[in-house]
């Protein structure tokens, strides 16, 4: 009888632990869903600001200076790219983790080292001072992102040498939108992963 009671206790503990795991998956899923919707709302605001600034720049500079004919169709690599790494969720699953690399083109290193060789010391000093560092976050351990002001300026120069401050503001707004999008992408993969877990648990319960 004692053994029966012990077995019954163990079974109840097992069921309790299973329920705890299911609740955990469900909570994580709901958290990621909430984060996803919040970030999408934030993205909509940022994009609206960007569109407004772009429209203001067009008003200030004229429609002929901001139009489709000016898009740069010469061969060039993206100055802003993504780094994809693998993140372990549990022993059976991994999911991608996206990191934004702003204004960090692949030939940046070559170009700057090439320029260092050919430039005089004074010019070299000026070139280095154009590189600025932006700390994204030190508390969370996010690494420093080197922002190449020359790359940013090059992107604007498609629309001429002297551009409206509104165009620069629009550029910053869309950069912020990109950062939000990368956060959304990471939450998106977490949400999908949790969704699959919850789906499996529900199927096991029904089966």
């Amino acid at each position, binding site marked *: 009888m004692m053994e029966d009671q012990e077995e019954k206790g163990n079974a109840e503990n097992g069921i309790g632990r299973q329920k705890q795991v299911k609740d955990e998956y469900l909570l994580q899923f709901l958290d990621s*869903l909430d984060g996803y919707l919040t970030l*999408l709302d934030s*993205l*909509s605001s940022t*994009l609206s600001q*960007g*569109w407004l600034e*772009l*429209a203001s720049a*067009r008003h200030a500079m004229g*429609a002929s200076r*901001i*139009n*489709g004919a000016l*898009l*740069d*169709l*010469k*061969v*060039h*690599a*993206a*100055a*802003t*790219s*993504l*780094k*994809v*790494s693998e993140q372990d969720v549990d*022993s*059976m*699953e*991994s999911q*991608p983790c*996206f990191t934004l*690399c*702003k204004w960090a083109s*692949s030939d940046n290193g070559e170009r700057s080292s090439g320029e260092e060789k050919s430039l005089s010391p004074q010019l070299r000093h000026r070139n280095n001072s154009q590189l600025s560092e932006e700390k994204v976050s030190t508390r969370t351990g996010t690494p420093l992102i080197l922002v190449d002001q020359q*790359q940013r300026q090059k*992107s*604007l120069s*498609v629309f001429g040498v002297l551009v409206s401050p509104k*165009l620069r503001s*629009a*550029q910053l707004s*869309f*950069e912020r*939108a*990109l950062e939000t*999008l990368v956060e*959304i*992408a990471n939450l*998106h*993969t977490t*949400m*999908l992963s949790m*969704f699959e877990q*919850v789906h499996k648990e*529900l199927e096991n319960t*029904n089966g």
Partner: protein
Amino acid sequence: MAGRAQIPTKSSALIAMIADEFGVVLLCWDTVTGFLLAGVGNVDLRRKTNYLIVDSKTTVKAIEDAFKEFTTKEDIAIVLISQYVANMIRFLVDSYNKPIPAILEIPSKDHPYDPAHDSVLSRVKNLFSAESVASGRR
């Protein structure tokens, strides 16, 4: 480990864009322009871009072809698509289930984001409504 999906890691991947700009008057490509200003534009040696601007003359087939191309290219990690454009190829977007590239539906200037049409959110909604029907029957 058996059954573990392999995620290809990349040190420099691209963001592709399929953005709509519908309008009669001027300059209907603000979303793509904005992201190009932010530096995501890429033109390869074959002069192919990592973006498609959708206007009134763009056919559904062209959008489908661009979607298939961007989702099969190895150097693309995220595909941004205006939700309005995604609705034109909804079947294709909903049937996509790979982790990379990630497909993100974004609002456009003339069409705000609608959670009811989002591919992932509608899948979630279907799951929970199917579950509530099943539990009701039990």
